[in-house]
């Protein structure tokens, strides 16, 4: 039967401490369990971990925690009599420590909780048993205990830092809000501290194209939001140590349009961004960082104008964050130096893959130009009903939507340690079912009926939802449009992406090389201008003209719809002079060519007019 191996009056002090620590652990566990069973949601929110659905899971977990705490009682009563229980009590604390440390992120406090009890218990148990072996009153095992204590403190500090730097991302009730403002896992890796981000337009106003803050780059703000301090669409505001601003998918996939110059603009989620100048925004950040005014003396007062800063914040920004952000932005400028030798992207355009090739995939600069129009990403389920698997991106370089969503996030700076598959799956679900907005244009009904016939005869094979070549890749030699975007995607890039294993095995296997462009279905066509993959033709009417007749230069980035010609209003311009609004796009530059796609150009004027009327209804 059970007989204590040592009486409490004669036990070494270390063992007494061990017993007290085990009791303290039991009481703490049970206190946490009771509070968590009663207020699970509040406890989860307080600790900052992901919300659980349903709440029975955290309740079950803490109920088990209370139950297993009772198993510690024998060790707390007499660690000598219940040697195994004493050892297992320590082992189990370390199991919890290791488990939560591996899970990482916001779960690290749980790891620290177990560690705070486990490490001293282990040291006290070791010391107590050593002293019992050596005889009462003799100091034994002290060097080992000191070393263990130092290691414990080091681990504690490391874990605390990991916890402090773990991303706390905002959660959104609606999928659309998640798409517009949710994190894609790039906050820590490429986010800019929020107070600094809001201060930069004030400190570096002379680097803005117009005195409108970030709105000067066409970034979109929802009604009621204050552009001076609120997030534009396409930016997540997440805490990684400090609050940071970083881009997400919506920055390139939300458009703004209005029916007339004086009309109220409307925002269209999932549409190809028409106003956002992502390259201009990026260059502004780099230029600001390189500017002499990018100093703590200038930035901190500008930050304090917009955000409340404590003395500690000011200290950290002055000596740590401002120098680090400056260094990172200058590194980014250097990493994008290759863009200086290519045509400027302009609003609504991007070279989506060369930054990935030369950065993330570490391929050498091959001189290619991938400048292309941003794409609408709605109705993806319908797209897969037309053709499955369905090619994505202008050249159909991947036909797995999962891979496209994940690789796009990686291209925007997401990293493995911040990446969340559920967050990506939520975006994918949203995009699959989000419909294209109906056209607001109301062309003549009779012309539309006649145009339908012209469309079926001349365009339907490639662009009707039942067309036999719709969503297939049409060779460049056949379609004749600018070849550069197609040439940009190389076999080397394909192989590098399929073999990409940075941080984890991403499971890419669907990247392939095509030599043409996808014949896209026309849903939401009214919002997709300018047209062709490189956005080189301003209107549908121009697209029905032979290439020499198409405008050589025009203004991009305006948001007034052209209800007569299709697309957006795009006046002609002189590339040597910046227009008052928007960006002067020059089709004579390499990669900007407006040739090819001559289908329908030989139709009669009446047929073109009817066809245009029909196209305006998409």
């Amino acid at each position: 039967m059970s007989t204590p191996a040592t009486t409490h009056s004669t036990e070494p002090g270390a063992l007494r401490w061990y017993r007290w620590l085990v009791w303290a652990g039991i009481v703490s566990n049970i206190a946490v369990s009771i509070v968590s069973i009663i207020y699970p949601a509040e406890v989860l929110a307080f600790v900052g971990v992901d919300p659980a659905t349903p709440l029975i899971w955290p309740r079950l977990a803490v109920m088990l925690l209370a139950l297993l705490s009772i198993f510690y009682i024998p060790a707390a009563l007499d660690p000598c009599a219940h040697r195994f229980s004493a050892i297992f009590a320590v082992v189990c604390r370390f199991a919890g420590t290791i488990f939560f440390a591996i899970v990482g992120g916001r779960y690290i406090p749980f790891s620290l909780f177990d560690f705070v009890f486990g490490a001293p218990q282990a040291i006290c148990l070791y010391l107590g048993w050593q002293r019992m072996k050596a005889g009462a009153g003799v100091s034994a095992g002290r060097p080992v205990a000191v070393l263990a204590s130092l290691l414990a403190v080091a681990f504690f500090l490391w874990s605390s830092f990991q916890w402090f730097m773990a991303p706390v991302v905002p959660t959104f009730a609606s999928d659309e809000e998640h798409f517009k403002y949710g994190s894609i896992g790039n906050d820590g890796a490429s986010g800019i501290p929020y107070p600094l981000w809001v201060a930069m337009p004030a400190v570096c106003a002379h680097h803005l194209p117009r005195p409108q803050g970030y709105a000067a780059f066409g970034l979109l703000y929802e009604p009621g939001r204050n552009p001076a301090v609120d997030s534009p669409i396409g930016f997540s505001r997440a805490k990684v140590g400090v609050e940071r601003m970083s881009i997400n998918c919506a920055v390139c996939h939300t458009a703004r349009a209005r029916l007339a110059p004086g009309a109220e603009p409307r925002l269209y989620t999932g549409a190809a961004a028409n106003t956002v100048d992502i390259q201009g925004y990026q260059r502004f950040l780099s230029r600001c960082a390189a500017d002499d005014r990018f100093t703590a003396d200038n930035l901190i007062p500008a930050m304090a104008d917009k955000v409340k800063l404590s003395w500690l914040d000011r200290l950290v920004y002055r000596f740590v964050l401002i120098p680090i952000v400056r260094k990172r932005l200058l590194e980014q400028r250097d990493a994008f130096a290759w863009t200086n030798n290519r045509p400027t992207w302009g609003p609504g355009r991007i070279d989506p893959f060369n930054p990935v090739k030369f950065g993330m995939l570490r391929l050498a600069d091959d001189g290619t130009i991938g400048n292309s129009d941003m794409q609408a990403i709605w109705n993806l389920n319908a797209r897969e009903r037309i053709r499955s698997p369905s090619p994505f991106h202008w050249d159909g370089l991947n036909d797995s939507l999962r891979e496209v969503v994940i690789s796009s996030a990686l291209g925007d700076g997401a990293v493995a340690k911040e990446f969340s598959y559920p967050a990506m799956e939520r975006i994918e679900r949203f995009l699959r079912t989000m419909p294209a907005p109906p056209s607001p244009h109301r062309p003549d009904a009779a012309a539309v009926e006649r145009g339908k016939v012209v469309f079926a005869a001349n365009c339907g094979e490639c662009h009707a939802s039942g067309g036999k070549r719709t969503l297939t890749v049409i060779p460049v030699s056949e379609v004749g449009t600018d070849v550069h975007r197609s040439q940009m995607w190389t076999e080397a890039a394909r192989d590098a992406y399929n073999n990409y294993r940075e941080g984890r095995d991403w499971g890419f296997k669907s990247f392939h090389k095509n030599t043409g462009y996808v014949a896209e279905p026309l849903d939401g066509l009214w919002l997709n201008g300018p047209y062709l993959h490189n956005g080189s033709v301003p209107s549908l009417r121009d697209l029905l003209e032979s290439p020499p007749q198409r405008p050589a230069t025009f203004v991009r980035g305006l948001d007034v719809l052209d209800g007569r010609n299709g697309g957006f209003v795009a006046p002609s311009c002189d590339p040597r002079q910046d227009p008052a609004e928007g960006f002067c796009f020059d089709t004579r530059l390499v990669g900007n060519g407006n040739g090819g796609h001559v289908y329908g150009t030989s139709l009669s004027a009446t047929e073109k007019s009817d066809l245009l009327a029909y196209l305006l209804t998409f």
Partner: protein
Amino acid sequence: MTDALSIGWTAGQAATRRTVYRRVLGFALIVQTVLALIAIVAPIWLARAAELPGAPSAGWVRLWGLMLLITAALYLPGWIEPVYSRVPNVIGILAHFVLAVAYFGLGQGLRWFALYELVIAIALAWSYGRLVCAELMSRP
């Protein structure tokens, strides 16, 4: 019959019942450990296969698995020396009953776990009761 023979018989009975209890407990611990490892390694698969309540949540199912694993580890002293380490055994048997009630209350696929916990709890309580009685009877 001599005292020596009588004591030898009761000690033999106690040894037999100790073996029975350890086998039942060993089986329960192995099942619990396997379940815990599956929950940690393949949480989504387990959640779907066992029709656990709610949307599959890898993190929380893993945490449940960890708790089961730790509980099994803390139960081990009771398996190693069931008579000497009575506290883990008594707590463990009560814990199985509590889990049976909790799983039943949580519903869906967890009701199968509730049934299993109840059967194991009864088997453990019965065999441990017999072991304790036999052990007491074996003492002069």
